């Protein structure tokens, strides 16, 4: 018997001359089965935890959108699985690692406080009259109503009279019904995240809010404020109810058109309309918008403005600057007959006035459109849509004098706020102008390149399908046409398509997250949909009449929004100028929360099991805990053989033709028949993953170490003398040889050939979703640059065979999971082959020609010999 074997045997039986007091082999078997089951559960939890950490890491790249429910669900699941890992380790060796609970508690508390959103509670009146509203109480009334207050009380321009149901009022309402917890629960439980499911979720949540009751103090406060309004504005005065959400209309988020405004409301409908506006927090556009922009639910307290209704003869929206070009300072006015709603909704083509910004406000451009309809107030309640007939259709909806007066107001508002404004206005029955709302205008910095290629597109040799309309959002997009005429079409909208619609309705906004370009037949560039397309960086042409007729579904086109043209096919020269799509997640509140919690979960600090810092108290993250527990659990399983003199479960040496020593510990059902004595035949092995690895190991005989050049050999010598840790005699017995721990579906192999160390762990069975393979490969005898290159080399090969690979220094980590049994077996064969054939390759890793040669040989071997094994059987 050689020295190593004797050494090994000593380790196994050291100090255990007396057998355990367990009364029978049956008891022992049961104890072993219990331990093994815990070990298996630990591994499953370990694997799950690592998978969840990968989810978090991927989300941190910021290229996908996610909500708080994603962050919470992943953190909760990670914490649960890490807790399970600790618990199962504690069952494996009771009392030995209890310090882990302390570390866990500490990290868990930090995660909790990072997730505990800094919710500021509002403590003001539930309702505030508009004359008490100013900029200082923005957090109580929302930006929209704060602006109305400022315009009325500070700037002194005319606005309607009214009051605001505050953020405190909103919180009172939500708390009274315990709505927030229920809302989270429903978002969390949602099955998929297709637009259809979002639809259902949106309608469920809105019904939940509409069905809730107002606490009596809130209801009283609202009705009392309305009575006060009646006293000054007349008995039975009709009102408009408008959303004024916190965070809405701040400079970089528009929330454009997501929430409901309810016009011409009578006194008996005020309370229901209030709930209706609050419910619109969960409209489909609002849910998808918050999701895409990473805004937490809690951040959006819904304040509601209640103002006297202006029975407008004309109305519209104006911009105090050109939104598409910072250098153009002219004022833009869109106007229609009746209420301004038709402009905001994009339902008709509005008149356009472009006005010079200085006295006497010269009218630079006037374009009077055919206005098909108008919105007017019903006498009782609500708003009706009226077809326009006769001359009025083509008549300008406001006079040039009114246009100049509006422009003057726009300049005053911009001067006060110090930046361009987007202003909604109306002209009352008596001809006077009233400002309804005002918010910062989203202006786009146009890169110079747009100016250039505006002129160059005439040179493009391509079929122009259509041109005209207005640039609502700049840029160039390419994709297949998809025409949306109704909500059913909307559900089927294929991502990465060109969205084509008749009208620029705000309800098309949810598709902009996945559209490459947008074309509408009607609608002005001051509408909500235009706002959202600019915010999301989706190129858009509005008012391109005939688009839905000219284009057909599936037709691939290039949309040049700057040149206002559609081309057949892909026009590369235009697409080159396309700026990359905005990444809206990075920097958002939810992204920041994710970063904070991921810092407590993902980083791995405990790298070296032999270091003194490899200790429960040194675990700084949940990843550290999983790493520590995994290492210890393998040790603990292995040491069972030491503690119990139990030949059935002692390790056996494998009898085989491969000239290396292989030791096998049967954890459970890894042998076909029980084995007495010290040896086991390969024919008696019943472990699916082990047999697959073994097939890979034996598929191609090893040709021995590669011929080494002098430098490579010197590098080995130098390293061996300088680094005592490389001395094999110092390493523990476990790592000093090839060691399998097996059951029918599980295999853990630690293998060490000289300085080359690899571990493979696999669970392979019929539960595909639990199947996994993890492989680590490190060390080597050569210097670090060569070892690194080898890790890189092995990593590249594994990546080719569909492993996820990570390289750190001279370590290669590879994993694969969730595949069915046959695919898992293939992967294990590849690993078995690589384990044998990549050792000592570090020595030739300085020579490019030899790297290429070995890579080719390895690919040939794997494709022609190793993977053929599966098909032969």
């Amino acid at each position, binding site marked *: 018997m050689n020295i190593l074997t004797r050494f090994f045997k000593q380790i196994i039986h050291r100090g255990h001359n007396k057998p355990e007091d367990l009364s029978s082999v049956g008891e022992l078997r049961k104890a072993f089965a219990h331990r093994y089951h815990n070990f298996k559960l630990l591994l499953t939890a370990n694997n799950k935890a690592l998978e969840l950490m990968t989810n978090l890491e991927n989300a941190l790249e910021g290229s996908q959108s996610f909500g708080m429910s994603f962050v919470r669900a992943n953190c909760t699941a990670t914490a649960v699985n890490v807790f399970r890992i600790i618990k199962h380790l504690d069952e494996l060796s009771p009392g030995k690692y209890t310090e882990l609970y302390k570390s866990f508690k500490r990290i868990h508390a930090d995660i909790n406080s990072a*997730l505990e959103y800094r919710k500021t509670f509002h403590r003001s009146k539930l309702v505030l009259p508009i004359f008490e509203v100013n900029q200082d109480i923005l957090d109580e009334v929302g930006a929209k109503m704060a602006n109305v207050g400022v315009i009325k009380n500070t700037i002194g321009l005319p606005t309607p009279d009214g009051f605001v149901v505050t953020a405190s009022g909103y919180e009172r309402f939500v708390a009274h019904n315990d709505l927030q917890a229920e809302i989270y629960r429903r978002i969390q439980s949602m099955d998929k995240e297709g637009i259809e499911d979002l639809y259902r979720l949106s309608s469920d949540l809105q019904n939940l809010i509409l069905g809730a009751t107002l606490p009596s103090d809130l209801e009283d406060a609202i009705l009392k404020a309305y009575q006060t309004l009646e006293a000054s504005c007349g008995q039975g005065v009709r009102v408009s109810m408008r959303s004024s959400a916190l965070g809405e209309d701040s400079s970089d988020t528009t929330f454009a058109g997501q929430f409901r405004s309810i016009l011409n409301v009578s006194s008996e409908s005020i309370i229901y309309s209030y709930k209706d506006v609050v419910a619109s927090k969960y409209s489909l556009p609002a849910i998808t918008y918050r999701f895409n922009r990473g805004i937490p639910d809690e951040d959006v307290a819904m304040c509601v403005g209640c103002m006297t209704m202006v029975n407008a003869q004309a109305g519209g929206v104006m911009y105090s600057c050109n939104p598409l070009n910072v250098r153009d300072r002219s004022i833009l006015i869109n106007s229609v007959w009746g209420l301004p709603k038709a402009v905001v909704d994009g339902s008709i083509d509005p008149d356009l006035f472009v006005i010079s910004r200085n006295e006497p406000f010269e009218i630079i451009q006037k374009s009077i459109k055919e206005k098909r309809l108008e919105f007017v107030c019903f006498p009782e309640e609500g708003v009706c849509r009226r077809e326009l007939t006769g001359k009025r259709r083509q008549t300008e909806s406001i006079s040039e004098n009114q246009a100049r007066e509006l422009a003057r107001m726009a300049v005053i508002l911009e001067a006060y706020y110090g930046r361009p404004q987007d202003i909604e206005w109306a002209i009352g029955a008596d001809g006077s102008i009233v400002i309804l709302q005002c918010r910062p205008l989203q202006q786009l910095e146009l890169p110079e390149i747009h100016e250039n290629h505006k002129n160059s597109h005439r040179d493009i040799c391509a079929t122009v399908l259509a041109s005209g309309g207005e640039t609502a959002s700049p840029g160039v997009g390419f994709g297949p046409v998809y025409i949306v005429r109704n909500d059913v079409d909307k559900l089927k909208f294929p991502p990465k398509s060109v969205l084509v619609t008749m009208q620029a309705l705000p309800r098309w906004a949810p598709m902009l997250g996945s559209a490459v370009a947008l074309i509408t037949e009607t609608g002005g560039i001051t509408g909500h949909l235009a706002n959202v397309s600019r915010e999301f960086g989706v190129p858009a042409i509005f008012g391109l009449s005939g688009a839905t007729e000219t284009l057909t579904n599936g037709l691939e086109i290039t949309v040049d929004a700057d040149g206002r043209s559609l081309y057949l096919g892909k026009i590369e020269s235009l697409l080159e100028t396309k700026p990359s799509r905005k990444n809206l997640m990075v920097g958002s509140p939810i992204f920041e929360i994710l970063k904070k919690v991921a810092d407590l979960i993902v980083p791995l600090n405990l790298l070296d099991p032999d270091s003194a810092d490899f200790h429960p108290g040194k675990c700084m993250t949940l990843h550290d805990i999983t790493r520590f527990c995994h290492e210890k659990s393998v040790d603990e399983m292995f040491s069972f053989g030491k503690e119990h003199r139990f030949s059935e479960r002692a390790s056996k040496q494998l009898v085989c033709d491969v000239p290396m020593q292989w030791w096998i510990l049967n954890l459970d059902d890894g042998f076909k028949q029980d084995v007495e004595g010290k040896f086991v035949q390969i024919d008696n092995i019943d472990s699916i993953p082990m047999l697959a690895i073994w097939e890979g190991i034996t598929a191609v005989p090893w040709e021995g170490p590669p011929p080494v050049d002098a430098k490579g050999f010197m590098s080995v010598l130098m390293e061996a003398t300088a680094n005592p840790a490389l001395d094999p005699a110092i390493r523990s017995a476990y790592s000093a040889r090839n060691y399998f721990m097996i059951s029918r579906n599980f295999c853990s192999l630690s293998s060490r050939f000289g300085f080359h160390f690899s571990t493979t762990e696999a669970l392979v069975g019929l539960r595909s979703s639990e199947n996994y393979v993890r492989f680590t490969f490190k060390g080597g005898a050569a210097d670090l640059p060569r070892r690194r290159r080898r890790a890189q080399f092995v990593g590249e090969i594994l990546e080719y065979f569909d492993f996820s690979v990570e390289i750190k220094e001279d370590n290669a980590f590879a994993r694969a999971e969730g595949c069915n049994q046959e695919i898992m077996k293939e992967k294990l064969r590849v690993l078995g082959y690589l384990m044998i054939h990549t050792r000592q390759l570090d020595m030739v890793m300085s020579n490019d020609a030899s790297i290429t040669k070995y890579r080719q040989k390895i690919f040939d071997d794997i494709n022609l010999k190793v993977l053929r094994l599966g098909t032969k059987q």
Partner: protein
Amino acid sequence: MSEFKVLLVDDETDFVVPLSKRLRKRNLEVNSASSGQEALDYLSQSPCDVVVLDVKMPDMNGIETLRRIKEVAPLVEVIMLTGHANVEVAIEGMELGAFDYLMKPVEIDDLLYKLQDAYKKKSYRPIS
């Protein structure tokens, strides 16, 4: 013959009824209770291997129910299954001895594996 006995505790019948059906098709004996109290009453009379417990229920919540289940039937394994993603509640449940804390929606087969694992754990429990 069924593999083992499961009790589903959830106040949402829309969830419980189809889930019971699907688990029965997978050869489990499934009963259900629509509140914590009903679950405790059931467990005090009938043997059961694994309980699947919702966290958010009116009257007695899941955590309180779990605490009492562990008193009256300490050998029963409990899997929390909930739409409530809350780290604090989850860990509280785990500390009280829940076998796992799963979040809705859950794949039926993943739930089945968890049930099998929990049952196996119960049957391997060393006699103390």
